[in-house]
């Protein structure tokens, strides 16, 4: 395929595939629905394969760090050893086998949960620094809402003030719904704009 025709071929592939899928949201023809379902299944499968590609890439990066001695090569070696052992165990035992679940429960879960746990500290520190450096009205409103929600989520006997809880309930059902709805609509409009740019050929990320 010539250099000029290849990009056009890619564009046709993207637009045709996307066009058939998009039409299926509003047009209910059996033939269209059948083709659409096939395309969706292919896309789902390819996305899974793309994740494998990402993993391959990660392994290559770390392998290169080992064979071309660079800083952090020891860590890469540790990572690859952990990968190989886990891969063998889970592949033989199946993803829901007892040993696979053991690895998940006693290695992956503690590490991931601990990483989120330290966020509790880091969040308080980050927001404290933000409000000390820049106590403008918006930051104070942000932090005031956060404090109200944290206090209203708990039920300390003797300190339960109904008006605090009522205020929190009103905020979550009115201003928060308003802000969140605006955010959702903003995201939705952004998604439509970006998607249309792709389907109209104005944006072609697959050529990079």
């Amino acid at each position, binding site marked *: 395929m010539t250099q000029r025709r290849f990009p056009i071929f890619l564009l046709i592939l993207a637009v045709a595939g996307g066009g058939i899928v998009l039409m299926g949201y509003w047009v209910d023809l059996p033939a269209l629905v059948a083709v659409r379902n096939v395309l969706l299944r292919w896309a789902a499968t390819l996305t899974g394969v793309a994740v494998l590609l990402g993993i391959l890439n990660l392994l290559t990066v770390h392998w290169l760090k080992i064979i071309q001695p660079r800083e952090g090569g020891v860590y890469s070696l540790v990572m690859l050893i952990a990968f190989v052992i886990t891969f063998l165990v889970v592949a033989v035992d*199946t993803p*829901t086998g007892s040993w696979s*679940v053991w690895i998940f429960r006693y290695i*992956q879960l503690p590490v991931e949960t601990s990483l989120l746990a330290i966020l509790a500290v880091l969040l308080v520190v980050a927001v*404290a620094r933000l409000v*000390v450096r820049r106590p403008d009205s918006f*930051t104070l409103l942000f932090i005031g809402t*956060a404090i109200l929600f944290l206090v209203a989520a708990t039920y300390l*006997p003797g300190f339960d003030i109904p008006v605090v809880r009522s205020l929190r309930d009103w905020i979550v059902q009115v201003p928060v719904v308003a802000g969140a709805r605006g955010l959702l609509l903003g995201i939705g409009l952004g998604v439509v704009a970006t998607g249309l740019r792709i389907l109209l050929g104005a944006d072609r990320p697959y050529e990079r």
Partner: protein
Amino acid sequence: MSDEDDQVTCAECGFENPLEAERCQNCGADLPAAFAENLLAQVPGQEPFINKARITPAQQVHLRLLGEMLAVEGQALLLGISPRRAGYTTLRIGTSLVLFLVLLFSLLANKPVFTHPSLTSEALEARQLVYALTPGAPVLFVVDYQPGFSGEMTRLGQGVLAHILAQRAYPVFLSTHPTGPAQAEVFITDLGINTGIAYLTPDQYLNLGYLPGGPSGLLSFSQAPQQVMPLTADGNSAWQDPPLQTIQSLSDFSLVLVMTEDPDTARTWIEQAGPQLQGKPLMLLLSAQAEPSLRPYLESGSGQVQGMVSGVSGGVAYQDSAVFTLQSDTSGITWSAYSLGLWVGAILLLLAGLYGVFRLVREQENELSRGDKP
């Protein structure tokens, strides 16, 4: 207070300005004010909610600062993060000590100080949906949260899952996360430990495993589940036993329940799977961080979401309200420790806010007195 890392780069000329500057000191261009929105941009699940096109220079500084502190996924943490400044380190260690000591004291003291919350109206609706399940009714139980959120999500969801099993409905686990299969096994095994019952596949539940493709996969599964997921998580045939033989589309499930910490994941389920339900209920079990962002779907009046239980408080309230009890019920103690942790966070933020306002007032007074001097 100047800090070499907290400077704003002018988009026009590249000059490094102090964070508080409103105009570039070199070329006079506007430097838009920072805003706390990017505080959350680094937190898992919140990225889609922060419109990155609005990042201003000062927000870039905050992103860098927060990226150093808030990254929780392994890759980000490997990027040479090393908090250097003594003041920041002291604050971080001090905050850590306060939180750790308070929680340790609460866990060791073993006294349930805080009372349990009551069910919200949306959680009541959720409970009614589960009560409406008949024996053998297939329930799609979507386990779509990152493993790091297991603590919260287990406390949130185990009461609901126990209720579903008490109704003798048939949960079918599915996940759009690759860790979902193991996550579901751990979830139901831990429930077994807490109820003293060993739940067995395929007699009492099924684990379909990982559904790839994000929105595309979801839409595809909604229309043809048996074709898209023909096998279970460990490679066995999935659909040959009742009550799953009659499942031809998502609407053949009696209830679809999505458990997630990510607003974007929940939004994808609502957008792609919701229209395929054809009136069957969609319930959300949400992390506390996702609930505010998704409230509009619950309150849309169009029936997009029919019930919602959120956070540890939602899970504790649900567990208290249902007719069953879990055998090892430590929710009293852990609930108190959790509540105490929230209070400590609120107090620390309040102190920081008061200090910030005090500093601002003092700086303004100093400026005024400098202006008054001859």
